[in-house]
């Protein structure tokens, strides 16, 4: 894993890491992936993937309105809020 790859992963992961943290993460991931590569020796072309432990069928329910949380309770945990909405840094200049 080269330094560009680990930088790209940190960006995709939205993690602001220092150079030292990036280096350490790269070493650790290389070490782990080296061990995990053992899986590549198993033939699996004819094997179905299991996204869940057992096949799960989608269970539909009646489309009926239920109770929802009051907006003020949902907003109580927001680091910043204004006028009943979550507040984030400005994203459109103007």
């Amino acid at each position, binding site marked *: 894993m080269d330094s560009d790859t680990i930088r790209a992963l940190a960006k995709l992961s939205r*993690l602001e890491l220092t150079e030292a943290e990036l280096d350490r993460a790269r070493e650790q991931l290389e070490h782990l992936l080296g061990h995990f590569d053992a899986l590549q020796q198993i033939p*699996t072309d004819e094997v179905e993937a299991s996204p869940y432990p*057992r096949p799960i069928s989608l269970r539909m329910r009646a489309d009926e309105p239920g109770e929802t949380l009051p907006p003020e309770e949902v907003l109580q945990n927001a680091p910043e809020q204004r006028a009943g909405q979550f507040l984030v840094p400005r994203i459109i200049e103007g």
Partner: protein
Amino acid sequence: MSDAPPITSRSATELATAIRDGGLRAAEVTDAFLARIASHDTGLGSFIEVWGDAALAEAEAVDAARARGDALGPLGGVPVAIKDNYVRRGFRTGCASKILDGFVSPYTSTAVARLEAAGAILLGRTNMDEFAMGSSTEHSIHGATKNPFDPARTCGGSSGGSAAAVAARFAPLALGSDTGGSVRQPAAFCGVSGLKPTYGRISRFGLVSFASSLDTVSPFGRTVADTALALAVLAGMDRNDSTSLADPAEDYTAGLDGSLDGMRVGVPAEYFGDGLDPVVEEHVRAAIAQLSELGATTVPIELPHTRYAVPTYYLICTSEASSNLSRYDGVRFGHRAGGDQDLDTMYSRTRAEGFGSEVKLRILLGTFCLSSGYYDAYYLKASKVRTLIREDFERAFTQCDVLAAPTSPFPAFDLGSKTDDPLAMYLSDVLTVAPSLAGVPAISVPCGATTDGLPIGMQLIGPALGEAKLLHAAHAFEQSTGHHLVEPCFGKATS
């Protein structure tokens, strides 16, 4: 002076009966556990927060209900500790992470709601590895929880706070969560019972997601009967969790007694291989011989894909975690990095400040496994090997009723001995991750101790929805031995 055992040494089943019959008041029971936590938990660190006033008020409500002649629920007045990854309306949940700083839940998880409806008294939230990522309860913003049998050693993880609390007689029951062994391994390290049910047997609604195809709500008890009692309260379908199973829950406490005549116990060769501590092997093999004494027959079993379980598990769980943890962005709840910054920098800085090193590593690994160009070779490959691992178990359960194996390859390890080496930590899960990938139930029960007094656990594994059979075997074993009665040497129960 009464000859009755101290309140804090009694099982949940005994306490529920005594409270129902009027021999004990719920308030005095809660008081006894709160007093023991107050006097002894400083050195262990099993609780992050104790809900003392709320717990006493709940206990008094149970006593008032009984005085009115109301029928009490199956856990009426029984104190329960809750891992810090379940939400409860009006209470804090933190997942032992800075990123959930200050979060107070506006709703209650189904597991906690079922405990409340059964009359349980919730004592507080217990320590864990951050977002349940770890095997030692050292990756916590609150510091490590120590093992009640030896404070220089880990209590296991990630549900280590709950395991230590039950072992230390701070609570007769506790909720943990088991994704790849996070209840069974700490149960083994702390000398208590820990049950991971079939995937979907208990609703995950309100359990903070780590790896959604693996996470299970899982109880700890000091006896198998208590663990069965907790499962009976918790199991069942929930419309808020589409992966919860529609199969009806059973009365898991009803079929515990009886001999093991005719039961076939499979012994998987792969679970007794390289890296297994000889002392652990000796005790687990003796426990299997004891199952034979009780009427079971043993059958040699092969689970040939076991050696691939750790890579498969870590590729899948980190992939799912990288997606699940994307919700922590500093917008709707928890920590937000300060300073004048654009939105993207706010996200990245918030997450860098809020997550610990192990969580960051797993997010990076999961993002790698799911990213373009690597998905087929890692996530998809692991999902296919998962099928092979499940098929191993399906074949095994055509030849036997339950499997018996060690829970952990070694007893509790020294604090700090694996925190700098993620691979060494991950490999400690080698015996618990395969049942998780297959979604089958498994329980760890105490089966002995090292010469230093460190507990050793035997893992019994059953087929999907085979909890009743599993609990029957575990209970028969436990009742024929005294391993579950051994108390940690620190502060014997006195109240």
